[in-house]
Structure formats: structure tokens, C-alpha cells
């Protein structure tokens, strides 16, 4: 059933968030530390375990896959509620600090991605995978 997948996702999410909050308290930080990342790791392990037990039928997968595919539309909704006015009103201090910070970080990214063991580029996009997002290439 589709809900099994969504429920599995929700359980991983809630447990991960709880662990992130606990980690925050343990470190004395007023924030969730890595809750999303911990939830992702839980989901990856849950998937591997269920697949090894042959407990992951297509319908269950679809219950998670739907939310993964909704990700970009949700990000668009997120962009639509950013405080763009304040960002523009921040003036030169905010603008210069942000531009220089990102420019330096972009250079570090370029440097680090070219050092050590380089990652294998992903294969070109398979149009079939993108059928769920019409017009998005």
C-alpha cells in the first residue's frame, strides 16, 4: 500500500528530527543539529533492510517517491515566501558580505571538487525519470 511508504518516510523523519533536537540539547545549541540528515540516513538503512527482506513492493516505493518528486514544487513555494524585501533593504553591508562570502565559498567548492578522488559525473538525464516533472529538464 502507498501509505506504507509514506508512513515509513514519516517515521524516519520524526525519529531523525527528534534525534537532531536531542543532539542540539546535548551540545547546548538552540537548534536542531542534523535532524534532516539523520532522517535521511535512517531512510537509506530502512530501504536497504526492507529490500533485503523483499518487503518493498512498488506501491510502497511510490509512497516515498511521490514526496521526492514533489520536492521541486515545494522549493518553489519556499522561494515564494522568502523575505526578499528585507534582503534588498539590508543595503550594502548585507549585499557585499553575502556576495563575497558566496564567491569565496564557490572558489573553495571548485577547488575541493577537483582535488583527491574525483567523483564520477552522473549519466545524462533519462527523459523517462523526468516524466513526473513536465517541462523541467
Amino acid at each position, binding site marked *: 500500500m502507498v501509505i506504507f511508504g509514506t508512513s515509513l*518516510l514519516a517515521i524516519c*523523519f520524526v525519529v531523525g528530527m527528534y534525534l537532531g533536537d536531542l543532539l542540539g540539547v546535548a551540545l547546548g545549541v*538552540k*537548534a*536542531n*543539529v542534523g535532524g*534532516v*540528515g539523520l*532522517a*535521511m*540516513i535512517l*531512510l*537509506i538503512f530502512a530501504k536497504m533492510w526492507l529490500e533485503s527482506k523483499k518487503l518493498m513492493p512498488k506501491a510502497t*516505493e511510490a509512497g*516515498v517517491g511521490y*514526496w521526492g518528486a*514533489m*520536492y*521541486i*514544487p*515545494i*522549493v*518553489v*513555494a*519556499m*522561494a*515564494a*515566501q*522568502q*523575505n*526578499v*524585501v*528585507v*534582503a534588498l533593504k*539590508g543595503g*550594502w*553591508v*548585507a*549585499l*557585499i*558580505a*553575502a556576495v563575497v*562570502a*558566496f564567491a*569565496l*565559498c*564557490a572558489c*573553495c*567548492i*571548485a577547488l*575541493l*571538487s577537483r582535488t583527491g*578522488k574525483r*567523483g*564520477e559525473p*552522473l549519466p545524462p*538525464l533519462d527523459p523517462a525519470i523526468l516524466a513526473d*516533472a513536465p*517541462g*523541467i529538464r
Partner: protein
Amino acid sequence: MFEMLYKTLTQQGLVTAFAVVGIIMWASGHLSKILTNGRVQGSAIAILIGLALAYYGGMVTGKEKGLADITLFSGIGLMGGAMFRDFAIVATAFEVQSSEAKKAGWIGALSLFIGTVVPFVVGATVAWIFGYRDAVSMTTIGAGAVTYIVGPVTGAAIGASSALMALSIATGVVKAILVMIMTPILSKFMGLNNPRSAMIFGGLAGTVSGVSAGLAATDRRLVPYGALVATFHTGLGCLMGPSVLYLATKALMGG
């Protein structure tokens, strides 16, 4: 008639948001083909439209949550809020190759560390240039350059004024928006075409919102790798901001 329609759309807020965002996605897919011959991704255009609408919403209502503050579009606030966003990000982990994720453990940690210290130093230095010469101001603005959550959390912890916190948040929001817009443009330069570099990007570019939108506009298969690392960014920033970074700034500025 129209009043009834308005009432219906407002009452069914979240569902209205699904409809609105779907229309934005459809329109941006076509704009991508017609205006840029498909060179600029539809999702990147959709995010830009979202930001433009957020600006409009902020101007009209004078509040903080962009389009979501307009009653008719209040559902956008729920759909794009932290709960749904994080839920969908976790769902993308389903496509992660765990062998790929394991490979970049230490480099993820390294990039997280650099991604916290470098923006902080830049932010604090810019603050100093603009005449904010005390440790509290420099730390608060520097922390804002890390992420817009680290800024106010740090500011509150070391007793910064609310005007300073607003400036710190503004710095973080500008950075998040920059990451959203510039990532697809700079993706070649940053070597952003594999899981390993996506994890480096997640640690260095910071903010979950910036990273997730930036990667979505570049190649949506990279999203889980970047998000996996970026999620530790705010936590690390909140940990280092009011402690090590503040003390270091204080030591350097002599109070």
C-alpha cells in the same frame, strides 16, 4: 460570485497552493523553452518567479513571509514551510546510492567547517569596514553570513540589538537567494555534476534553503547528497557562532 470563489480558494489554502505552484511550474517550463531554448532550466525559472512573487507579497503586505502573507496564497506558507520542505528532502534520500554517500564522509566534514569559518570571517570583516568595530556587532553580522538562522541565534546569545539582528538576517537571506540564483549559473565552475561535489557544495554553500533550491535548479538527482551535508550546517554554525567564533573575534578586537 467572485467573493464566493475567493472564500473557497482561501479556505482550501494548501490545495490552492498546489494549483498555483503547478501553474508556475508549467509556465516556467514553457518560458524555459521559448525564451532560452531550454538552456536555463525550468525549475530555475520557477524559483526566480517564486522570489519575484515573494518580493511582491512583501511589498503589498509589509510583512515577512512574501506571497504567503497574502490571505489568498496563505497555503504557500504551509506548502513551502520547513515541515514539507524537510519531509520532501528526506524523501529524496530514497534515491541515494549509499556507496556514494560513504565515499565523501571526511570531505563533507571539512567543507562544513570551511563553510562556517569563511563566511563568518568575510561577514565580520565587511562589518568592520562599514564601521561596526565591536566584537558583538562583528560576530552577529559574521554569523548572519553563515546562515540567516545562525545570525539571530548567535546575536541573541551574545546580546546584540534587534537592528543588528535584522541586518544579520538580511545578510543570510541575501546569501540564500544568491545561492539559489547563482548555483545553476556557476555549476560548471564548481564542478557540480557528481554526488561528491554536491556534498562539498552542501557543506560550503550553507543554508538548506539555498542549497536545496540551487541543486534543484542544477540537477535534481544531486539534491539528497547536498542536503545530507547542509543539514548539519546550521547546527554547526549555532554551535561555533556564540562560542569559538565570538571568543576569537573578541580576542582579536580586544573587547
